[in-house]
């Protein structure tokens, strides 16, 4: 049995080394980002890797006020809360139908929806822009919400479908006998039953919308309407900003994902495996 013990210890050691290395590849750039965000541009040039000699919060003030990140945060809150309500209703409703009801072409329609899930924003971008212009939805938060929900719903629908498919059907049957119509069934029965998965798709949806870039770039062209990701992506991509300010912007925009992650880790992990791993 001596061999077994050593191999176990070996495995543990290898595991630790790998995880530490992996953690470092994330944490080291992040660490440098934090210390850089507290330096002036002058200090960053002369002291790139050391701790800041004099801590300054100017970079944060710059990106929050002049860089408008504070304004973008407000925009994001409006966009995401509006988008999320619509997204949940649409995914839960469609998931209910696909998962629990029998109707002609059920599987074909569902597969069609899943087929559309793969296309990147850029495949449809030119036409989405044209349609949005025709409906006067350029520079409109409402327009972006509709496009976001259209783009992200297929995945949420798929997760809700697989979840609802595992719910026993007699619950709906008995509600139907009691005379509940379809909206009542959805609101009173399916949504409460689906609550854990709705929480999961809400976290996934929030992160997806928070991190979305292409559609925001196309539809929100007025600077004061932009989203946070759009703001920081444009700072780095098109207009080179001084490095310390860019890192401050990264710090600010990492806050929401990190907070969500700390509090809703369980749901994020659930979403990661839901709908994809099936034995």
């Amino acid at each position, binding site marked *: 049995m001596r061999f077994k013990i050593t191999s176990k210890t070996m495995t543990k050691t290898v595991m630790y080394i790998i995880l530490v290395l992996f953690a470092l590849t*994330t944490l080291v750039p992040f660490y440098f980002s934090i210390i*850089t965000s507290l330096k002036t541009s002058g200090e960053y040039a002369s002291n790139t890797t050391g701790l800041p000699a004099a801590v300054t919060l100017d970079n944060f003030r710059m990106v929050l006020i002049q860089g408008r990140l504070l304004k973008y945060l407000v925009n994001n809150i409006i966009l995401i809360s509006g988008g999320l309500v619509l997204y949940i209703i649409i995914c839960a409703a469609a998931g209910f139908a696909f998962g629990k009801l029998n109707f002609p072409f059920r599987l074909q329609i569902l597969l069609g929806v899943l087929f559309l899930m793969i296309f990147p924003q850029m495949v449809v971008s030119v036409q989405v822009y044209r349609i949005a212009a025709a409906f006067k939805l350029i520079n409109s938060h409402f327009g972006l919400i509709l496009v976001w929900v259209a783009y992200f719903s297929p995945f949420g629908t798929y997760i809700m479908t697989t979840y609802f498919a595992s719910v026993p059907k007699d619950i709906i049957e008995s509600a139907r006998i009691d005379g509940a119509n379809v909206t009542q069934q959805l609101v009173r029965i399916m949504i409460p039953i689906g609550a854990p998965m709705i929480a999961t798709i809400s976290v996934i949806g929030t992160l997806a919308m928070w991190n979305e870039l292409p559609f925001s770039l196309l539809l929100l062209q007025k600077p004061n309407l932009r989203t946070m990701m759009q703001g920081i992506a444009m700072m780095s991509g098109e207009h080179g900003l001084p490095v310390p300010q860019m890192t401050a912007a990264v710090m600010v925009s990492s806050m929401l994902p990190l907070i969500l992650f700390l509090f809703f880790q369980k749901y994020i992990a659930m979403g990661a495996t839901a709908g994809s791993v099936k034995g």
Partner: protein
Amino acid sequence: MARIRKPGDRENLDALILISPLLILLSIFILYPVLSNIYYSFTKWRGFGAAEWVGLKNYRMLISDNKFHSALKNTAILLLYIPLGLLVPLLLSAIMREGLKGWSVFKAILYLPNVLGYIILGILFSVFLRNSGPLNTLLRSAGLDVLAINWIGTTKSAIHVVGVLFVIWSKIGFGCIYFLAAMSSIDTQLYDAARVDGAGWWRILFQVTIPSIRFAIEFWVVLLFIEVFARAFGFIFAFTYGGPGFSTWTLEFGIYILGFKNYQMGYGSAWAVVLFLFCAVIAYFQIRLIRRAEK
């Protein structure tokens, strides 16, 4: 009600009510755009006014466009990283499976890049890896000037850095969680039987673990294809902005620059048709996998 309803009628109507919001939104913002894009790829259109029919001109332009060649070549290079994008998380999870059972701290660490998203990761690494950035400064101060190459500043290395970071590194955490979940459902008797037969670690990996999670592996490979063709825009935008030169252009990035920076929307649509075809093939494979899972 005069008409005698069949029991299925009500269910059909209910289903229609429930799925129509989704189908309406999808038709307007995804399905119709995919189809009308094909028409616009045969036109010259600057994003306003009428589109002018130009036949195959955009496609002829594609064939001789360096930017297009560059985008295809770069995509091909990124695809070459897929085998490692599979093997690295697969091996790591096979190692972790031995001792890792619901170890949430590890999961959290592994998950971090995923949560931050590609734009934040792109900016983080663009700062960290630039020629005068922290990594090269550290390498130089350690006397390792040979290693302090201009990672994303030279056309030769930039796309490979994207390959390593985007295709392999950024997905290690998610891959491990994904494969560990799949491995947790393998019947432990299979392992016991293999051990009784005297099978070593590698043999168990190839004869028990991998065959048992073949399905998850196939899904993962399809996912990596999707990531390369259809999910790299944000990372490229924030990390290299397609540069230096066209050395990290992809099809997605090309559509953005041509359509929305150069206002060649007709020509950009032709790029989008090419991207659409690639994605349709991948989607076909994914649907086949999902159908097999449903059975």
